């Protein structure tokens, strides 16, 4: 072994990490090389200086803290072991504080409710008109005036559907205007002299016929009622 090889072996030899065969070669080299022996001596001096630095002692407070941590840990384990197995399972699994757990459960319940009553797609949303059509039909009577031989008011049942939509409110015309627009011409009976006792009742003005006087009003009885 030469000095270059010896230099690479110096640290491992000092640390006792050199293989026995190489260690003996290194020792043989040191026996004949004063300079390498001197360098090895310096390394040993450095090690001695490092190892002679007195170790520090931690305070007694550290001992107390560590042993207290150990006792606390195993006291908690013992307490867990004393409760029933299903509770111990929960305690082991659920290690969050109780208030946080309660808050979490409340939030979960609210989220569940929101999911159940959540918004449906627009296509599934029922319009007010559809909702009205789905409602039970209601039969109401609307007075409809039907012109017959004698003027009278006949009430005809008509089915209407209740709509949920409020109809647009239009400005109501004056009562007098409605009366004038809706006023129908009065029926007039005419006598056809060429056809005998046949008479026509119409609102149109017939020329060439003799108008008959209006019959007197009378109360309908029995089968005359419609």
């Amino acid at each position, binding site marked *: 072994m030469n000095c270059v090889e010896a230099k690479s072996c110096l*640290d491992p030899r000092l640390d006792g*990490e050199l293989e026995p065969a190489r260690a003996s070669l290194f020792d043989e080299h040191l026996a004949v090389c004063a300079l390498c022996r001197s360098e090895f001596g310096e390394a040993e001096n450095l*090690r001695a*200086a*490092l190892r002679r630095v007195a170790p520090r002692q931690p305070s007694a407070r*550290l001992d107390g803290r*560590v*042993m207290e941590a*150990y006792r606390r840990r*195993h006291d908690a384990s013992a307490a867990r072991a004393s409760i029933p197995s299903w509770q111990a399972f929960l305690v082991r699994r659920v290690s969050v504080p109780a208030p946080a757990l309660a808050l979490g459960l409340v939030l979960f319940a609210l989220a569940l409710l929101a999911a159940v009553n959540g918004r449906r797609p627009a296509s599934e949303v029922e319009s007010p008109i559809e909702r009205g059509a789905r409602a039970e039909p209601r039969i109401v009577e609307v007075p409809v005036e039907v012109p017959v031989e004698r003027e009278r008011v006949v009430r005809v049942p008509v089915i209407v559907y209740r709509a949920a939509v409020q109809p647009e409110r239009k400005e109501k015309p004056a009562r007098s205007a409605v009366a004038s627009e809706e006023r129908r011409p009065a029926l007039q009976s005419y006598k056809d002299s060429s056809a005998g006792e046949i008479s026509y009742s119409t609102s149109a003005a017939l020329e060439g016929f003799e108008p008959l006087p209006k019959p007197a009003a009378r109360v309908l009885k029995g089968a005359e009622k419609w």
Partner: protein
Amino acid sequence: MIDFDDRQLARLAADGDAEAFGEMYRRHRDRVFNFAYRMIGVRAIAEEITHEAFVVLIEHPERYSPERGSLLTFLCAVARHHVMHYLRRGGREVDAPDDTGAFVADGGDDDPLGALLDDELAAFVERAISELPPPLREAIVLREMQELSYEEIAVVTGADVNLVKVRLHRARKRLKERLAPYMMRDGSESHELC
């Protein structure tokens, strides 16, 4: 209890044997503390790191695996993790430890001057160690003060064994240069390779 090895003590301690844990703690407390102290240089921080290392052992005893290394290796690895975390956060790293250095007494109290020089050298050695970069510092502290093997240092630092050797060599070289005025009292000379 004293005759038990670390593996047996760790098993007993995990089962709630406070005496076993106490024995285990007494065995390794000083070395873990001194490793943290040499790395940080602040006693209070070093105690906190030592506490955390043992708390990990208390809370998670399953993390210690004897197949991967000794208990001291495990504790030093945990302590190193906290040390590096502290240093990365820009924690205070003092130039020299906050205690006055002292050599281990040889038993000869009849040489006050020699004792004074030894104390001075001890303070100088501590300062020189604290001036090393953290990777070199941890290598030299784990090897020379904790007396761990290369493989154990590699486990603690998470580095390759060859890298550990390189770091140790560089650390020794720097320390030798730094301490040359004190180490060459006997007049020895550096030499050229033959």
